[in-house]
């Protein structure tokens, strides 16, 4: 596989990889590094890639694993200390106080979900994958995906209604 064939195969989902890692790692810089690193890994394994039926799902699984490793590693824990002082737009305390910025509230609500639910929300509601694909990416059963997704959506719904009523009162 030469470089242009490789790029044609993997470039279409680079934004998805980036957004998925950003959902897990929070910071844009970390997500950019993760995306770069992932593509390097894919490039190194380019001969094996052509054997996979669904390269995109495979890449997303790799992204997930890579991000989990990053979160576990010491380096990332050092970084998270930094992020307690400085956070991405939409997640900072100031932004949380601004109740009228309801879109960033959603961001915060999703950030508060358990990791698994966060990933499923990202893959379904933002990247619009089928349940079957999500199951493949996360290596869980379709029914488990549905249950977790429903739980996540309901949590967000309850919180949103709470916020909404709070705004009125």
């Amino acid at each position: 596989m030469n470089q242009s064939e490789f790029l044609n195969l993997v470039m279409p989902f680079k934004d998805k990889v980036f957004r998925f890692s950003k959902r897990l790692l929070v910071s844009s810089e970390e997500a950019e590094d993760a995306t770069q690193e992932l593509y390097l890994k894919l490039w190194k394994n380019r001969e094996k890639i052509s054997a996979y039926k669904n390269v995109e799902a495979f890449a997303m699984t790799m992204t997930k694993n890579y991000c989990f490793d990053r979160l576990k590693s010491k380096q990332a824990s050092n970084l998270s200390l930094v992020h307690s002082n400085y956070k991405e737009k939409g997640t900072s305390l100031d932004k949380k106080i601004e109740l009228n910025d309801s879109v960033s509230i959603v961001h915060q609500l999703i950030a508060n979900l358990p990791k698994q639910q966060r990933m499923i929300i990202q893959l379904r509601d933002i990247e619009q994958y089928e349940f079957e694909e999500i199951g493949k990416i996360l290596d869980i059963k379709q029914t488990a995906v549905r249950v977790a997704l429903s739980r996540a959506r309901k949590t967000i719904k309850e919180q949103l209604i709470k916020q909404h009523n709070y705004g009125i009162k």
Partner: protein
Amino acid sequence: MESNKIEQLLDKYFESETTLQEEAVLQDYFLNSKVAPHLKEYQALFEYFAKSKGDRYTKTIQLNNKKKNWKWMSIAASVVLLFSVYIGYQHNQNQQRAEAEIAFKKSQKAFELLSKNLNKRTTAFGYLGTYQKTTNKIFKKQ
């Protein structure tokens, strides 16, 4: 009418029983039409999803490994360091030898000088010896 259908879809949505098509309908409703007042609280959710989709990776992806270069650089640096230490040691050794040679020559000269002068003294002692003999002769005769 419209909002009734949306409500049904929302119920299904929260049970995660909607298809991707139905979710697209919901998204379209909350983004592009006049949202019924009692459904307003869900609008932010779908707005957020739509906004998040626009997040792009803007940097260029590099396929040649940067990290590996660092590894080689460090190996090269250590080799250079080792070599320079060796050269420095060698140089130091040579200098020490040269210094020792100079010191040796200097001390040799000093010894030579000493021995020359010492020889002068022995001849002087010789004179002194003859002087003593003659004085002895004189005193004996008295």
